[in-house]
């Protein structure tokens, strides 16, 4: 039970905290306000309560794939909002950050809620559940804080686009996750895995979880997952290149 809770937090909370830490590191360059985070968390909690309240009927939608479909939609919305975040500046960027945080908390929070709610009433599981939750949350928070300070370090100043590139990797992960759920629901057709790197980096290992959170790493992806991932990664990278090009022109003219 203890290790299950730790793994659950690594899988569900780590990607959320990693993405929030990247957003925070980028926003901090222009503003030290944390209002976007507070608003996002509040809206996310509200969304979580609403979704958790209707989780059983939702799960029955689409022939039993309702929860996956809601999650897929959420991932795609987060991806679109992240593209907007890369394009926009200051105020609009803050608004999009609120939307992103709210969607992330609603989706991943519901997964955690399902697990905790299922075992909360079991007195034999409670101690392990609490310790596991604390450990999982602690590890995830520590990694997210480390990433936040790494992206704010002076070394990054020599590569100012790096936080945005890291954000693009995390954005592409959103699409990879959406495609994963669509394959699972048979809405998209998967081929046999294109490759299998389980022997080098297993999905179930700690680094596997971390790389998944950062980049959407899958040890044995299908062709369609790879194609969508490359398109999803290429789009924000192209936006970063174009906006940098425009900014340079503005500076020189």
């Amino acid at each position, binding site marked *: 039970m203890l290790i299950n809770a730790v793994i659950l937090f690594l899988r569900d909370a780590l990607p959320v905290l990693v993405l929030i830490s990247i957003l925070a590191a980028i926003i901090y360059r222009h503003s030290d306000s944390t209002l976007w985070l507070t608003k996002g968390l509040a809206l996310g909690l509200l969304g979580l309560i609403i979704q958790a309240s209707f989780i059983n009927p939702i799960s029955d939608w689409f022939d039993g*794939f309702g*929860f996956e479909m809601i999650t897929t939609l959420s991932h795609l919305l987060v991806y679109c909002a992240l593209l907007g975040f890369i394009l926009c500046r200051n105020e609009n960027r803050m608004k999009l950050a609120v939307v992103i945080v709210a969607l992330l908390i609603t989706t991943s929070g519901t997964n955690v809620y399902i697990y905790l709610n299922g075992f909360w009433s079991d007195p034999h599981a409670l101690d392990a559940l609490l310790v596991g939750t604390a450990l999982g949350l602690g590890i995830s928070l520590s990694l997210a804080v480390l990433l936040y300070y790494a992206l704010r370090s002076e070394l990054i100043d020599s590569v100012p686009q790096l936080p945005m590139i890291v954000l693009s990797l995390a954005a592409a992960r959103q699409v990879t996750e959406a495609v994963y759920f669509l394959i*699972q629901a048979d809405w998209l057709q998967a081929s046999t895995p294109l490759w299998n790197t389980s022997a080098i980096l297993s999905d179930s290992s700690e680094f596997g979880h971390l790389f998944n959170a950062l980049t959407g790493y899958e040890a044995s992806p299908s062709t369609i997952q790879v194609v969508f991932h490359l398109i999803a990664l290429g789009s924000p990278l192209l936006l970063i290149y174009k906006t940098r090009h425009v900014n340079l022109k503005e500076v020189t003219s």
Partner: protein
Amino acid sequence: MLKRLVIVTLLLSLSAWAERPVIEIEIRNHLFFPAEIEVPSNTKVKLKITNYDNTPEEFDSFDLNREKVIFPKRSATIFIGPLSPGHYYFFGEYNPNSAQGVVIVKGADNAD
């Protein structure tokens, strides 16, 4: 070129919603029944999983690259495959010590 690639991929990928072989699995007392499933190679298969327990369970498999929450007293479906012959292990993420199983994919090499 990229546009063509996307269109071809989408066309190839959109499922024809053809009838898939269905295999039913039950979860009782945090155990999968049957815990060993045989499926043909290179075939997409529909797993219908019913959770008879009072707690949720998550069907999880790193080998199959699948995870899905099965709510208490409810059924859910997962599509797996097409798979190469071999053994693909799965487990219940909320009760991994007891809920364990394997999908055995039979091909020409390991058919009975």
